[in-house]
């Protein structure tokens, strides 16, 4: 995967070209105007969305679709809040019915406190969704074994966590993330736990194909400005990764030549 991208740096999930390697969530903003402005500022063309009941008692309630047009942005419906396979399948089948979305983000949580993914349910559900024709991006633990199993089941992208959802703690297991990147033939996208722009750069420098950010932008004091910071952080990290960093030395190596020194 890496060799291909050095020639022409195109980001594809399944067969779909995604222009920005920064994917953003649409939750936790103060209002929908702020959501729309932050997304625009981030430069992202793919956004995650949740599926919830229509509020029938408030006919005038503003809709996400009116602020973030599904014609301009690739909607990636998620299963946030699902704790089992049955609920996740129901949610994504309904999401597909809204407007034909086949590319979806599967996330099945196993524990309310850590929101850690339940990999047994996740593996089971991925299999069903792939069979039903969904292109599944899967939120998962940073365990290389599970990541490999997901790929073998036909996942379109592997989305390991950096740290628990909404924690903002940054990448905690660079080694595991690196192993997952090296072994995967499908894109690896860091999902959850990124706290600030430099975390995204680190993820991209490790060789991730993309990052998915929500809380770190939405909960910043100035979300629209932070969205822009992430845009550049991801571009920067990607270019840095493609450039190939210098080797590390344990001692100093002078930058200026020794020849011609005034003695």
């Amino acid at each position, binding site marked *: 995967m890496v060799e291909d991208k050095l020639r022409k740096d195109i980001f594809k999930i399944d067969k779909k070209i995604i222009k920005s390697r920064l994917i953003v*969530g*649409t*939750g*936790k*903003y103060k209002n*929908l105007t702020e*959501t729309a402005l932050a997304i625009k500022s981030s430069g992202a063309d793919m956004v*995650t*969305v*949740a*599926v*919830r*009941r*229509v509020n*029938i*008692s408030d*006919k005038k309630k503003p*809709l*996400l*679709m009116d602020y973030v047009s*599904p014609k301009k942005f690739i*909607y990636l*419906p*998620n299963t*946030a809040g699902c704790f089992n396979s049955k609920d996740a399948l*129901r949610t994504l*089948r*309904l*999401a*597909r*019915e*809204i*407007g034909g979305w086949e590319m979806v983000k599967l996330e099945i949580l196993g524990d309310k406190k850590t929101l850690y993914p339940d990999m047994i349910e996740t593996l089971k559900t991925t299999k069903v969704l792939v069979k039903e024709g969904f292109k599944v991006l899967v939120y998962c633990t940073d365990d290389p074994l599970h990541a490999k199993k997901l790929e073998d089941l036909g996942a379109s992208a592997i989305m390991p966590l950096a740290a628990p*959802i*909404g924690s903002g703690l940054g990448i905690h297991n660079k080694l595991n993330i690196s192993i997952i990147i090296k072994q995967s033939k499908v894109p690896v996208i860091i999902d959850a736990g990124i706290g600030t722009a430099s975390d995204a750069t680190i993820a991209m420098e490790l060789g991730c194909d993309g990052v*998915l950010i*929500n*809380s770190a932008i939405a909960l910043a004091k100035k979300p629209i400005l932070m969205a822009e910071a992430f845009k550049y952080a991801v571009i920067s990290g990607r270019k840095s990764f493609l450039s190939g960093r210098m080797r590390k030395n344990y001692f100093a190596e002078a930058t200026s030549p020794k020849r011609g020194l005034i003695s």
Partner: protein
Amino acid sequence: MAKIQINGRKKLIKQNFSVFDLLKKYKINRTKVAIELNGKILPKNKYNVTKLKDQDIIEMVQFIGGG
């Protein structure tokens, strides 16, 4: 009249009321929602021809902000 349940709330509707009529009543655009009728997804092209019956249970969902 028929007693139905929409998104967990009990509602009374007229006889012969279709799913399409229901969307009109709540000013909901069919392109922005998906509907489950008694636990099964109802395809959009069936909204006009599907009449609601007493004790029907409807779940109507849309996209909202999420991560």
